[in-house]
């Protein structure tokens, strides 16, 4: 380079370091548990408000972690018939159902070649602890097809160590395509009404085309079925976060 007039070059300050403010990133990531969103209906909103107060009360005393379908959880419950009055079950969450205080989640595991599914209520006072062992979202909201998949996809070690996860990172999505047992299945998972993306269908082309006969492409344009929850979610998120901060 030609230096200007022999004078020393102008002082260039060093490039500013990029600071990833992890506190701000965590605040931006808002997660509202799906059981807080009221279903569409003619019930009085006062009922949902009172239910939400109870749910916030319970969450203050007992921590319910953020989890999605596909996470591996370990739940300890108080059991009057167990030896130590406490029973622990580890499994993959295949479904989250119910709204309000009656919200449930189903954990599935295969123990000694026997598939076991237990449906737990989130707000049941007998639950002592819920630990998230592995954070991993799957391609679907509902993993009921694991019942007809090969048992290796539902087995999880009962004494699994919790896999560490950094707070500010997003929950990873596992794009695993599951292999199924031979037909007949409990439900016809290849039909478009279930909209499953996580199965590796090894069926012949003819059967897949025949399954598309039951597709209902008009459903996504049906205006009466629309339920926009964005504004309701914002209001409820503010209410819940303020309730938990107190």
């Amino acid at each position: 380079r030609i230096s200007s007039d022999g004078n020393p070059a102008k002082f260039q300050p060093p490039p500013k370091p990029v600071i990833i403010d992890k506190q701000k990133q965590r605040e931006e990531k808002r997660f509202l548990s799906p059981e807080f969103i009221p279903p569409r209906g003619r019930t009085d909103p006062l009922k949902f408000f009172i239910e939400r107060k109870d749910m916030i009360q319970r969450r203050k005393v007992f921590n319910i972690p953020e989890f999605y379908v596909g996470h591996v959880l370990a739940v300890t419950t108080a059991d009057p018939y167990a030896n130590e009055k406490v029973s622990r079950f580890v499994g993959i969450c295949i479904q989250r159902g119910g709204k309000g205080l009656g919200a449930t989640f189903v954990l599935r595991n295969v123990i000694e070649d026997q598939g076991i599914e237990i449906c737990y209520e989130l707000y049941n006072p007998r639950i002592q602890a819920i630990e998230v062992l592995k954070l991993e979202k799957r391609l679907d909201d509902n993993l009921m097809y694991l019942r007809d998949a090969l048992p290796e996809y539902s087995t999880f070690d009962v004494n699994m160590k919790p896999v560490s996860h950094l707070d500010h990172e997003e929950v990873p999505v596992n794009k695993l395509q599951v292999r199924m047992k031979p037909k007949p299945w409990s439900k016809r998972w290849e039909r478009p009404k279930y909209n499953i993306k996580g199965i590796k269908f090894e069926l012949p082309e003819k059967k897949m085309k025949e399954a598309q006969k039951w597709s209902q492409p008009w459903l996504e344009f049906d205006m009466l079925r629309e339920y926009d929850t964005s504004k309701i979610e914002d209001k409820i998120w503010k209410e819940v976060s303020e309730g938990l901060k107190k």
Partner: protein
Amino acid sequence: MMPIWTKSGKKHAVTLLKVQDCHVLRYISKEESGGKTSKLLVGGKNASPFYKSESAMEIFKEAGVPRKQKVTSFNVTDDAIIKPGTPLYAAHFRPGQFVDVTAKTIGKGFQGVMKRWGFKGQPASHGQTKTHRRPGAISTNKAAKVYRGKKMPGKMGNIYRTSFGLKVWRINTKHDIIYVNGSVPGHTNCLVKVKDSKLPTYKDCNKNPPFPTFFADGDEKLPEDLYDEEIFQFTDPSVTYA
């Protein structure tokens, strides 16, 4: 309806009933009504005064109260008479009491005999000609007539029915809500009449209820939520079996 858990870990289903603008409208004495006890007319939810005639509005004007959607009568003993115009609140009931709830059931319209009375009908196949949900025989040969009250198809629902002996688990004094055990006749947001239970097992259950009723401007200051002794309150830690 909501779930409620007891301290032993059992779950019960509970219906929420809201006491919305209830006022006492009129006192009818024993001689006037012609019954064994005197009556108190009580009105429910507020409604518009423009859809009723002047004569119908007289009762509300006397009591000094807006027009009510539903007016029911309660048989009262002489020592429990309340002045017309007093508001009634949910704190009139206390947790641990037993209560009867009356309401109009959900109307199902004209229904056949299988849904209305639970008849078995006929088999779906094996030669049945046009007979799958019919009542079959309606009387015997010797009777030579059909008895009065024979169960036949007709309008089902939309009649007053009562659920007896429902326990009151919790009362919210701020929003005037009563948590009543089990289910209650009627659709969501319908008007419902709540009375003390008439069942003989619960005759001595009411220990010191607010008598004649709970007065909001009185001396008693109740907490926002009144719970039954056995309820698990969400402020407590999780249930354990020792």
